[in-house]
């Protein structure tokens, strides 16, 4: 017997009916939701040949050259200057470690079955290695310092060479002094496209999730921190500096997510249902796919989310752990919510000029103050909430960005701006309508 999802839903409602009859009747009633006839998210891509190039948000793919029967890459491990929010007022600039001048390092793209030859030059002050996370390769190429190879000393160049036997979303990172080297930003995506080119998509976005501890007023990530991080990043960038994902309506979209942080992240997409189509173990069998709006990407995992973007709008995409969509904030401060202290604040200002009582009515006022520069924060520290949208402050930071779906996109790939909502499709105020009355 084959059940549609609709039937499954209704069956669930019927099961509940025995307990709460009224709820069962609501569930059984025809849904008024206009999107209930949501198209099959598995609709094929418009693209009929080849692979869509991977868009590494705020990043790039590393150019390769073909030589002696192999695709050659050259990675340089080195200390770099890194800005978590380029172009934003709030800044956090650090000395990070990365590859080829950035963290994450450039994305490596190759095709299943190819031979890759990857040179690694170590310009770090200590030895390193690279582990190719998820790739099937000879043990001697696995990059575990001390186990499968000697550490690569500073100043030397070593070469990894192997055949790509599996396809999917992978990443690379050091497996030498791993705690420190990953904490300081050494990581990169390694995407192996399938040889057959099945499951094509029109947009192929990729990101590495990471967490950082850059104590306010400091300039280097603290590798000793185990759980209490204060910066949560897509490709080492925080909202609102994270690039939006630009999609034309109807396109099939893939979002590749790798997690090199120390926390699991429930990644949530607004507006669409997606299928998790694969991970670092490769593409999943179709019969295991099921629709989701949130996918947990655990530590050391990758996940591919695929969906058809058939509704225009600006759709949020973020980690659903609320503290992961914040920038630096205290996690053990006394809770100011509901604390009446405005009169006291005046007296406190006599001993502490400039003192501001915050949080009595909620934390949102914080962004108002920081945006307007009322309060000076510690040097090299971004406020916890940032971002300005068409309707006000977004009060977000960290792991947050927007999928922008439009009928048309600028040819040059630039941002189309904020979504213009068609009349009658947006929430509106009624409390001031003269005829408004709640029954």
């Amino acid at each position, binding site marked *: 017997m084959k059940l549609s999802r609709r039937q499954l839903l209704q069956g669930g409602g019927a099961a509940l009916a025995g307990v709460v009859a009224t709820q069962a009747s609501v569930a059984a009633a025809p849904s008024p939701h206009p999107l209930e006839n949501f198209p099959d998210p598995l609709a094929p891509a418009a693209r009929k040949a080849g692979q869509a190039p991977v868009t590494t948000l705020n990043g790039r793919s590393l150019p390769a050259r073909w030589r002696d029967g192999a695709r050659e890459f050259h990675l340089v491990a080195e200390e770099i200057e890194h800005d978590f929010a380029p172009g934003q007022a709030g800044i956090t600039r650090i000395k990070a470690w990365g590859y080829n001048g950035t963290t994450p390092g450039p994305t490596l793209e190759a095709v299943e079955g190819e031979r890759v030859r990857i040179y690694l030059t170590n310009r770090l002050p200590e030895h390193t290695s690279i582990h190719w996370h998820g790739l099937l390769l000879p043990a001697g190429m696995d990059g575990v310092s001390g186990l499968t190879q000697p550490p690569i000393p500073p100043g030397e160049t070593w070469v990894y060479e192997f055949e790509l036997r599996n396809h999917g979303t992978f990443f690379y990172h050091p497996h030498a002094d791993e705690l420190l080297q990953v904490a300081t930003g050494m990581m990169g995506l390694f995407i192996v496209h399938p040889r057959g080119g099945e499951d094509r998509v029109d947009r192929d976005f990729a990101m590495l999730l990471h967490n950082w501890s850059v104590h*306010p*007023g400091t300039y280097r990530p603290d590798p000793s921190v185990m759980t209490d991080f204060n910066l949560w990043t897509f490709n080492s960038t925080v909202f609102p500096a994270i690039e939006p994902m630009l999609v034309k309506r109807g396109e099939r979209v893939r979002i590749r997510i790798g997690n090199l942080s120390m926390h699991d992240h429930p990644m949530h997409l607004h507006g669409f249902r997606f299928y998790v189509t694969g991970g670092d173990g490769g593409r999943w069998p179709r019969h295991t796919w099921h629709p989701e709006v949130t996918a947990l990407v655990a530590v050391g995992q990758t996940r591919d989310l695929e969906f058809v973007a058939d509704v225009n709008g600006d759709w949020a995409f973020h980690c659903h752990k609320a503290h992961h969509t914040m920038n*630096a*904030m*205290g996690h053990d*401060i*006394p*809770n*100011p*919510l*509901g*604390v*009446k*202290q405005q009169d*006291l604040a005046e*007296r*406190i200002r006599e*001993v*502490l000029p*400039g*003192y*501001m*009582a*915050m*949080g009595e009515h909620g*934390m949102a006022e*914080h962004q108002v*103050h*920081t945006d307007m520069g009322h*309060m*000076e*924060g*510690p040097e090299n*520290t971004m*406020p*916890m909430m940032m971002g300005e949208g068409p309707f006000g402050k977004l009060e977000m930071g960290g792991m947050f960005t927007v999928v922008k779906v439009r009928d048309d996109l600028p040819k040059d790939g630039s941002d189309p701006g904020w979504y213009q909502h068609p009349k009658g499709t947006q929430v509106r105020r009624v409390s001031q309508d003269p005829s408004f009355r709640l029954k």
Partner: protein
Amino acid sequence: MKFPLYAKRRTPVAWLALTLLGSLGLAGCASVAPRELAVRAQLPAQAVWAASAWGGATPTAPEGPADDTLTADTAVRMAFTSSPHARSLRAAFLAEVSAIDAAAAPGGLHFSWARLRPADGLAKLALALSVPLEEWLTLPGRQRQAYWSRAAAAQRAAFATLQLERHVREAWATAVAAQRRAALLARAAETAELSAELATRYRDAGNLPPHDWNEQQQGAAVALTAAAEAGVAAAESRTALANLLGVPSTDPRLVLPQALPSPPAMESADNAPDAAALTAALSHRLDLLAARSEAMAQQVHARSRSVWSRVPAVAAGVERERETDGTRLTGPSIDATWSPAGSAEARGVAAQAELADANAATLAVEVANEVRLRALAYRRALDLDGLLGTHLTQLQAASVTAAQQQQAFMLAGPFDLLEKRRVMDELFANAEQQRLVAWLAWYAWQQASGVAL
């Protein structure tokens, strides 16, 4: 024993000047300008000149008060002009000098007259006039002794005056520091109270566990106690100053500056006073000069006693009598007294002189050592003052700013910030205390070196 400064000025003018200055209790008031001294004490110019040269304490013009607050110099002037302490110094000096003058007076004259009348008949008249020769013969010696005794008295009086000045300056500095400490600790207590009240607001909102609330209340109680103690200490030290100045503690002139100025800088050479500095101290310390003068006086006295104790005390004169029968008799008379105790007394006086000399020598050693010790103590106090006053307080001020920034970005709570603020005031209070220690060490060092305060 040589006192070059003093020996050169063994002139009546210098004497007059010294006596006048000493009697006014102003001889050591070195920080008062000579011109001002002359005007106030209406002294002849020579006296002022002598005051400048004498005792080595170089007069310097005090800095005028920057505002309406009571400066240390003004306090010293008030003490010298209006306090009973200065009066008692003057009176004690005058009494001592009078006693010395009495002991150095020229020999006297013995005169006796008697009229003895029988029941009937002519009265018998007896008239005798004699001169105690020893008193006249010892006069030059006694005057030399008195010369040194007066010098010792004047130097002691001047030293006592300098000490009074030092006490006034110390009391002034103590009162200023105590006042600032009290103000800072009062603000610290206010901050702690605000923090405790904020804790109550948090508790009332249901956001603060009782344990944390209790901690805040305890913190406020501790800070309030410290502030109350500092307030009492400030009142006490202010009263002590008023007592020294001889005014009621409510005197409107007792408006103290907010804080102590930075203590004077120290040359690195001052760490280990050299021979010149020690020599200067040895020739400038008034108590040492007094001890030496005293030793000289004793020496002169002993020399004189060693001669005169061996001979009887002789008085020579004339007597004239009229007997009852009218006969008149006239003739010279000699009266001699000799005591076997004389030589023992002479040995005793010689021992006293030896003792005075030894005392002066002991003091000289102590002065040299004290100069070294005080220099070291001041260096240490100055270092600590710099560390606390500049370094730590700056760091702490920065930490308040940092806490403010942390709180602004919701990285830290208001209690941390208020605590930093309170601790900063407490640290400033400690720094003021250390600054007072430095100033006290400065006074001690300067006075040990015989330099004007």
